């Protein structure tokens, strides 16, 4: 699903550049869940930005679903991004929209009918236990609630890949655990998930394949799939979610 070949990313002018990623090779299979870890400045966020085509590689190739994304024309990039759901450390909810409208954004971008948006967003909010807060302002949400809304927003179009950049960075350990449980459940339903985090305890607890970056280089690739799923017995039920496209098609 995701392949990186000799990917390097440098910032600044030639000769005085800073290397954020250095000759990274990696592959994430379809339906896999991967933790991307390493200290601050290791290149985790840069890698996610490269996957989203927010930035271009300095050298090497990034393939998503077999396509070299950095060979895409600018006009095609929005359509590539529709394959991703993205979750950030600081939630990045839009404060001028209520919870419902925040989750609905992805479907509005696709121009889907209002009745489908209402049904799908309703299901998602119910799944994350926030149906009662549909019309609350993001300002009135707790950190855990805000991150759940952000995850619901990322999932609204059933993306093929969920990218989470430090999704638990602003949360306490209990909420962090709940969020990762939710992400694991999403992965269990078939979505490829990449979680960038420097929280070693969480990685240890949830035990999925872990890619470790250090100084821009991939220094470790530890596959612990044998332990995956141990911690998936959370109280969140995503099983009732429909495919958002099913009825439309």
């Amino acid at each position, binding site marked *: 699903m995701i392949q990186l070949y000799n990917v390097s990313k440098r910032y600044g002018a030639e000769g005085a550049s800073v290397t954020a990623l250095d000759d990274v090779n990696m592959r994430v299979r379809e339906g896999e869940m991967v933790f991307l870890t390493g200290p601050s400045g290791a290149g985790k966020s840069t890698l996610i930005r490269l996957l989203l085509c927010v930035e271009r590689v300095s050298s090497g190739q990034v393939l998503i679903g077999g396509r070299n994304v950095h060979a895409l024309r600018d006009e095609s990039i*929005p359509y590539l*991004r529709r394959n991703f759901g*993205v979750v950030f450390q600081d939630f990045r909810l839009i404060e*001028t929209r209520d919870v419902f409208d925040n989750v609905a954004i992805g479907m509005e*971008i696709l121009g889907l009918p209002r009745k489908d948006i209402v049904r799908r967003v309703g299901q998602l909010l119910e799944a994350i236990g926030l149906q009662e807060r549909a019309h609350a302002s993001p300002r009135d949400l707790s950190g855990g609630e805000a991150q759940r809304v952000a995850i619901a927003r990322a999932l609204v179009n059933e993306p093929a890949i969920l990218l989470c950049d430090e999704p638990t960075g602003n949360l306490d350990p209990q909420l962090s655990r709940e969020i990762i449980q939710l992400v694991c459940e999403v992965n269990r339903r078939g979505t490829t998930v990449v979680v960038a985090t420097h929280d070693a305890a969480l990685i240890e607890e949830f035990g999925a394949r872990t890619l470790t970056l250090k100084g821009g280089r991939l220094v470790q690739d530890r596959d612990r799939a044998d332990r995956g799923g141990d911690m998936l017995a959370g109280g969140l039920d995503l099983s009732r979610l429909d495919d958002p496209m099913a009825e439309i098609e």
Partner: protein
Amino acid sequence: MSATLRLISFLRAALRLMRGSPWLNAVSVLTIAASLSLCGLFAMAFFNAHTLIDELGSSLTIQVYLEPDTPEERIGQIEARLREHEGVKRVRALSSEADRERNRKLLDPALLEGLDDEAIPGQPVLALELDSSLASRGDLEALVHWAGQIEAVEAVEDVAFGAERLRLLFAVLEIIRSVGVVLSAVLLASALFFVFTTVRLAVWGRRREIEILSLMGATPNFIRAPFLLEGALQGLLGAVVAIVAVGLLHLELEGLVRDVYLLQVQPSLLPPGMVLWLLVGGPCLGVLASGLSLGRAFKV
């Protein structure tokens, strides 16, 4: 989603943007309104001055004074020649006696006491009524030129008509047009600047939202649309305010023209086409300013 529903969705987003910065939006709307009002005001002044010139032009008569001893036959020849000229509706011939009688009525009777009839000026006159209005300065100059030609005809002593008055009106018209164009351009530029600034600030204030939309796969046009609509709405509101302002001013002017300047002229409001131009021009101005402000702000 149909185009209509999408437009409604964009409109909602645009209104949300406007609610987000009401004061800035109010300043933009008022600036557009001020500039379009000025445009409308000058258009109204220009339009009415033109109407006035047309009215004066159509009521214009040319007096051709002939030498006192011009024979009847010669007078008949000149009259026939003038009648042939395009635009001459009627030619009325006055004998020396009739002209003297007309002049007598114009003078103060006290001055005429004890005077011989011969002392009162009187000469044969041909009074020409024109059937065309003077739509342009070119028409007036053509008329002046023709009057000069008449003056050169044998037995014609003088040709008189209100050319100077019309020239003055044309000059006033020219000033109205020049000042109107310059002031309107300055105000339109400032309106453009205000909308530009409003949208730029809105974009700056919503850069995180824009980034999120972009990361979720929104196309640049999807992101731009609400900002462009915000500009268009500002322009439309500005145009409506301008039309109301010009309309109110017109009501004030109606009374002023009649009561203060004692002109028997009914000042017209803007022609319907001009109202339509303002209604279309306002949103266009807003969209142009928004478009300039957005520029390449939403690079993917």
